């Protein structure tokens, strides 16, 4: 498979506290991630683990503190000209979590799609743009497209709005869609429709998708590969089925044990974790999961574990895991 995008040592820190506090929150630290063409990667982790920061770094909402993003062999830091940046933004659009606040309520649905087309598809004339808008709305499963385009967001349900989010992204002829928790605000009964839509977009439009979620079951349903984040680090990565069948990192094991599954009997003896996500402000070296980890050893206190390959393409950042 051809590599589409790669991050190398991607790091983003934020200043916290007062202007002169000098404290830094390590939202994302030293992340290496590759995304191939036509691949769906799930980025899984709890609130505050840094997964949305990665999304924003890739969408160039934030600039990295250190490290680089290499898109089709070129570092993004080298993109200087407006045209190049615009082209990258069209290639890598983002779909947001909350479909109730990501569409402008004052405009009809076609507004956002048309503006995107005007900006990113200068090859099209007015009729071409209209035809393309109809095409993308149909591609996300909304019919009749012409009528939907003339509606206001309040006339659409949450699931329909989120589909419009994908239609907007699709209008740019994207290579990689960054979907930041696209279904977490939706009802359980319509989530599956959106997941199926993402799978279909990969099949029909050939896009790659970075699917960001805290729901590991939906990650399994959709993704080829999975990367689990904790406290700003990727702690485990590998083919989805391999990671779920044999989770190596204790945090991945915890995540899996927490998934509600009505088909499974309740394991009363299951370890119940009451731990809180770490606040990674000026972290000392050492594993960031050690405070919650049942397997922690002395070494975890002093040395940050790096990703190690424990099975083919399956890597975990843990001193103890085998």
């Amino acid at each position, binding site marked *: 498979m051809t590599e589409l995008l790669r991050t190398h040592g991607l790091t983003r820190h934020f200043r916290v506290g007062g202007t002169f506090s000098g404290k830094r929150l390590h939202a994302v630290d030293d992340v290496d991630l590759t995304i191939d063409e036509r691949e769906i990667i799930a980025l899984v982790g*709890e*609130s*505050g683990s840094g997964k949305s920061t990665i999304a924003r770094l890739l969408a160039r909402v934030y600039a990295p503190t250190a490290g680089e993003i290499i898109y089709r062999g070129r570092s993004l830091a080298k993109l200087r000209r407006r045209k190049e940046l615009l082209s990258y933004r069209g290639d890598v659009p983002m779909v947001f979590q909350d479909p109730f606040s990501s569409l402008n309520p004052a405009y009809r649905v076609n507004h956002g799609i048309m503006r995107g087309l005007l900006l990113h598809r200068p090859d099209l004339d007015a009729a071409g743009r209209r035809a393309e808008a109809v095409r993308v709305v149909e591609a996300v499963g909304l019919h009749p497209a012409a009528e939907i385009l003339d509606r206001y967001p309040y006339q659409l*349900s*949450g*699931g*329909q709005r989120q589909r419009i989010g994908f239609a907007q992204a699709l209008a740019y002829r994207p290579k990689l869609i960054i979907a930041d928790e696209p279904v977490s605000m939706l*009802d*359980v*009964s*319509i*989530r*599956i*429709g959106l*997941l*199926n839509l993402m799978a279909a977009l990969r099949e029909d439009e050939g896009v790659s998708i970075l699917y960001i979620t*805290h*729901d*590991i*079951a*939906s990650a*399994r*349903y959709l993704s080829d590969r999975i990367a689990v984040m904790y406290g700003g680090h990727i702690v485990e990565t590998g083919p989805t*089925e391999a990671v*779920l069948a044999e989770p190596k990192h204790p945090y991945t094991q*915890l*995540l*899996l*044990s*927490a*998934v*509600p*599954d*009505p*088909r*499974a009997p*309740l394991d009363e003896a299951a370890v*119940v*974790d*009451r731990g*809180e*996500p770490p606040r990674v402000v000026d972290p000392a070296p050492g594993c960031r999961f050690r405070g919650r980890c049942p397997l922690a050893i002395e070494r975890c206190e002093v040395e940050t574990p790096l990703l190690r390959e424990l099975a083919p393409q399956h890597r975990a950042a843990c001193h103890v895991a085998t």
Partner: protein
Amino acid sequence: MPLLDVQHLRVEYATENRPAIAVDDVSFTVGEGEFVAVVGESGCGKSTLLFALARLLSPPAEITHGSVDFRGKNLVTMTERRLNVLRWREFSVVMQSAMNALNPVTSVGAQLADAMAAHGRYTSAEVTQRSVEVLKLVGIDPIHLASYPHQLSGGMRQRAMIAMALLFTPDLVIMDEPTSALDVVAQRALMVQIRELQAQLGFAVIFVTHDMSLVSHFSDQLLVMYAGQVVEAGPTRTVFDHPAHPYSRGLLDAFPSIHGPRVPLTGIPGSPPDLSRLPAGCTFQPRCPVSIDECVTTRPPLYPVGPALSRCLLNAPAPVSAPEASK
């Protein structure tokens, strides 16, 4: 006598045209210490039902029919003054979004003290003692009495809300999607905690959620709501193992599993009906994969199916001409 006995409850929202019936003829009971889950999609009336039970509805919503007997006293006809004696002490409500339900400009301790002052006379030493107790109960370090909501994580905020609801050890705690803003680990921890507190303190829970899988291991009774009506009700295990209503089956098939083979799922096509313009027959018929001709014209009653009840013509004991199921 059950702790809570809801009979034929109906709630309408006045609109310019005809009223939207958000809760339609809902009946159920909650026993002492029981965990009752109410599940359904957005707009199915589950939150309205919960607000009606706690008498928290405000216009244009109004209870137009039915009764809510709490220990034999009808809450629907009770005056605000008498309700205030029961609220917090006998039953309390945990709201959906802890971020919005907690006051951002006062400390957690001040909010606990506020709730206590509103429902009794206590010395500040008593207030502090009780506040420390309830925070410990839900696993929050009492040091956070001085913290402001923004200094707590989402899970801690939600637990602080539950601590507040337990200040007077009520007999019934009504919860509106308390876990929906949390990630799976925090969600699971909170559910286990609610169950433990229940075993320890003996209160009953009415738990509203759209995520059916969440309550599968925690609730005793399950009510599935659709378009304002209960479409299936029964012991949780029965409903999960043998869902009788096509809507319950659809909900169950709507989420992927982390076990077993990866199978394509379809969810439930379409969206819930407009409550002010309901179809004449079964309200689920337009989305139902197994509907028959009668479904278009006949609104089904609740039929008994084993220990459960199901509002589906296919569950009628005799072919379709079945009599109205007895309540």
